[in-house]
């Protein structure tokens, strides 16, 4: 699969698709600007294909950490005012967001 990513073949449609997945609204010019840059980086990354990694277990974290449990003691959370102080839109004690459901016709 990595060969598919091998540099020049990255299309504008692929970049636009990735931008949609990443929830970034990109104008066509931005897609065109990013396309060769992303392709160059992916081309470099494709060097990983030449490594012999047989038998190497994936290592997601520097130390093999396991679930670390805290003592089951309640602690004070942040007050609502502290949370809301950074919200872009607030109604009373709530975060205001645009309508999520379409209106019934």
């Amino acid at each position, binding site marked *: *699969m*990595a060969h598919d*990513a091998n540099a020049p073949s990255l299309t504008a449609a*692929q*970049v636009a698709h*990735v*931008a*949609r*997945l*990443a*929830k*970034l*609204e*990109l104008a066509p010019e*931005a897609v065109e*600007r*990013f396309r060769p*840059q*992303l392709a*160059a*980086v*992916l081309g*470099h*990354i*494709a*060097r*990983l*294909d030449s*490594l012999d*990694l047989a038998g*190497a*277990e*994936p*290592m*997601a*974290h*520097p*130390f093999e*950490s396991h679930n*670390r449990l*805290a003592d089951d003691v309640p602690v004070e959370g*942040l007050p609502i005012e*502290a*949370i809301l*102080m*950074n*919200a*872009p*839109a607030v109604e009373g004690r709530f*975060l205001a*967001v*645009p*309508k*999520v459901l379409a209106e019934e016709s």
Partner: protein
Amino acid sequence: MPLPGGHADLTALRDAIASGATSAEQACAATFAGIKAHGAALNAFHETFEEDALARARAVDADRAAGKPLPPLAGVTLAVKDNICTVRGRTTCSSRMLGNYRSPFDATAVERLERAGAVVVGKTNLDEFAMGSSGEHCRWGRVANPWDTGRVPGGSSAGSAAAVAAGLCAAAIGSDTGGSIRQPAAFCGIVGLKPTYGRVSRWGLVAFGSSLDQIGPMTRSVRDAALLLDCMSGTDDRDSTVADRPPTALAATVERPLERLRVGMPRQYVSDANDPEVNEAVAACADAYRAMGATIVDVDLPLTDAGISTYYVIAPAEASSNLARYDGIRYGHRAAMRPGDDLAALYARSRAEGFGPEVQRRIMLGTYMLSSGYYDAFYTRALRARRRIKEEFDRAFAACDVLLGPTAPTPAFAFGANDDPLAMYMCDVYTVNTNIAGICGLSLPAGFAMRGGKALPVGVQLQANAFEEERLLRAARMLERAVAARTSAHAPAVHA
């Protein structure tokens, strides 16, 4: 060049305050005089806290006058990279996304350093969300290098490095995901320490690559780095990835040279791709170690080059996940609504407006590599390479105590010289593997390169295995002393 008042470093300033030779208020006022005189030329600070800092400094002086015991950092001035949360001021990550963000809590590292008496003077400029190696990708203007203001200070902890090098604070803290403390330290001629992963709590460090990020000191001397790490390390209930270990006690041993030291020199680290002065500095350091009785060991790290490929899978993958939280709903930039917008459109426009181009590039890289059909080919493969890189270091550290090599292939480059993203990523070739393997690394000044009639600092990197900071700092202190004649030949053009 010393700090204002003639103090060589943070430790000297701390001692002068403790003995009454100077007052904390005087030192603090001198710091702000320096920031006012030179801050604009460097653009190192986003925000400063003069009144508050002076009040804290006066409180230290009052404690001393009352005969109270002073904590280890009492009255010293400290700058904090602006991706580390402070209740005081804003925490912007140099991003429009968090332009007005006020943290409701202090990072554990900040809380501990303040408890130890440090006076936080301000928040420093950085490449947006710590993504960059030059200090050019900043929402409110780039940072300049105090040695030559036409050149970059390195990144991403650009403002912290420039501020320390210019004497605008006694020390600073930064964060290092792939070299963001060490590379700007090298470019600005200061000491930068990336501690072992898990040494310092990440609570309050705005997440970029959660398995790579560490907070660390940026200082004028190796002993200062030891002292700051002692004051901020140790376990923390609020970070489940911090090591369950007590704080370090490095200041007590840092002056003691190591006997029978074995210094490994990876043959891949001295390359024709490096500038000649960089290779020359590494060779001079090897000679200095030999003269001190150390054994130089030839080391083979064939995966050095694979580090960049591995890093630019893992770091963007983690970044794309971490930065998914910025949706314009709970905090951060929210775009103006347009007729017909649904929630998805609001997310996508808020993120496109809020993030700068480098952050968008990395989010897209990560999203692509984690997307269906590509995950194994990129992400799993990079995690396998990560295992091999870690094993390679383990083998190396069986034969030597520390590794010696360059911090970066070149000294500070001119603004705009690495506009191509991939070229910029290659600046980190000697630093990323430290983060990939989770070990510790330190950059210290080792010489100069002359460019256009100006002296630019050249740094070398020492690396040691996980949790071997004592060995790393003692070896670094030996070298710092041995190359002092090489590193004191020039002074920054901009200095308080």
